[in-house]
Structures are given as structure tokens and as C-alpha cells.
């Protein structure tokens, strides 16, 4: 069963992303939404962890949440897929089990 992990909190404030990356298996997906999108910006403390994770899991970020927070799409780590709400729905449908990290 492939899991779609959903992270909606900033990794600078909470450990959701860190725990998610620790427990995500190869073949899983991860989408960053709401405050979680700040992790997707290049040059941050979590860039290295995301790049390492990208070898095994597919990472996406919700574009409208980037835009709302003034994070330019040019600043998103290369290889992270910027999706709109429709793309988010497609991801939920594509994976077997959604897992929201509270």
C-alpha cells in the first residue's frame, strides 16, 4: 500500500515533517500544504533532508499555499513538483492511503 503523506505544519515550528520523513517508505508520496510549504524553499534548514528523501519518495508542494506566503515558485527545491488543488486531488486518488501528520 503506497501512502500519500500530507504535512501542513512548518518544520521550524513542529516535528511533523521530520517524523514523516523518518517513517516514510520508498515509493510513498509527500505533499506539503498550508504552513508546511515553507520547507520546500531552497536554502532552508530542511532542504538537505528533503533532497535526500526525494531519492525514494515523490515530493509535491501546493502552489496556492506558496503564493499566499510569498514564497516564489522559483525558490522551490529542484525536483519538487508544484501542484494546484486539482493536482492535490489527483495525488490523493493515485495513492492507496492518505496520512495527514497532525
Amino acid at each position, binding site marked *: 500500500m503506497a*501512502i500519500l503523506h500530507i504535512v501542513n505544519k512548518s518544520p521550524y515550528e513542529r516535528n511533523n515533517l521530520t*517524523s514523516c520523513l523518518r*517513517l516514510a517508505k520508498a515509493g510513498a508520496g509527500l505533499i506539503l500544504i498550508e504552513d508546511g510549504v515553507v520547507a520546500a524553499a531552497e536554502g532552508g534548514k530542511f532542504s538537505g533532508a528533503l533532497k535526500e528523501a526525494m531519492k525514494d519518495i515523490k515530493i509535491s508542494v501546493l502552489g496556492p499555499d506558496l503564493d499566499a506566503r510569498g514564497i516564489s515558485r522559483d525558490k522551490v527545491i529542484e525536483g519538487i513538483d508544484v501542484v494546484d488543488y486539482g493536482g492535490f486531488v489527483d495525488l490523493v486518488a493515485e495513492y492507496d492511503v492518505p*496520512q495527514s501528520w497532525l
Partner: protein
Amino acid sequence: MSATKKFLFLNRKAPYGTIYALESLEVVLISAAFEQDVSMAFVDDGVYQLLKGQSTDGIGMKNFSPTYSALGDYDITKLYVEKESLEERGLTVDDLMDLKWEDEDDDWAEKDSIIVVSAAELAEIMDQQEVILSF
């Protein structure tokens, strides 16, 4: 619809500070009543839910930790605790409640409900679930 599904309740919050831990227990018991294959995982501050010696007299809240001892009677016998989360907090399995269940297929032998697993093992367990509920 009478299909049995594999449910995992993922608990990541300490008890009493928020309502998550208690709500998780409530939903776990409800799902067991519907005869689902239920297991629980305790990660991050969720491991504090299982500490023995909880005493809430001083804070005016109900101590719901004894409820975990009853889970075995509802066929909830798999309580996975992530080793990394325990270690990070300076805890070992000896700090946790001694939770047992009776195996009717093995002459009612008492067995441990708490299973300490590594992050890699828990990732595998999560991957086998049909439904994961986060608390």
C-alpha cells in the same frame, strides 16, 4: 459492508495537554466494536501516553491511562512503540505500563501488548494498513 480492514491509530501527542490522546482511545474502542483489525502506534510525544505511574489528582482531570490495560479484552493487542522516540526522551520499555493480553488460541497465555519497533519496522507496518488515523 462487513469487510474487516486494517486500521492503524498513530498517536504523536502527550496526554492531558491536549484532548488528542483521550479522543484516540475513544475512537479505538469504537472501531474495535465494529470488529476491525485495529493496531496502535506511539511515536514522538505519543510515547508518554503509555508511561506507568500517571496520577492526575493534582490537575483535576481523569486519569485515562488504566484504559490501555483494557484494550486486550477488545482484541486490540498490537501497540507499537517507536524505539527512536523512546530513546530521544530517555525512556525504555521499563518506563511503560505492563500491558498484557490473553491469547485464547494459546491456552489463554498472557502476552505483551507493547511491541517496541524501529522506525524502519514501523514504516513497514504503516505500509500494510488500509486506514491510518492520526491523533
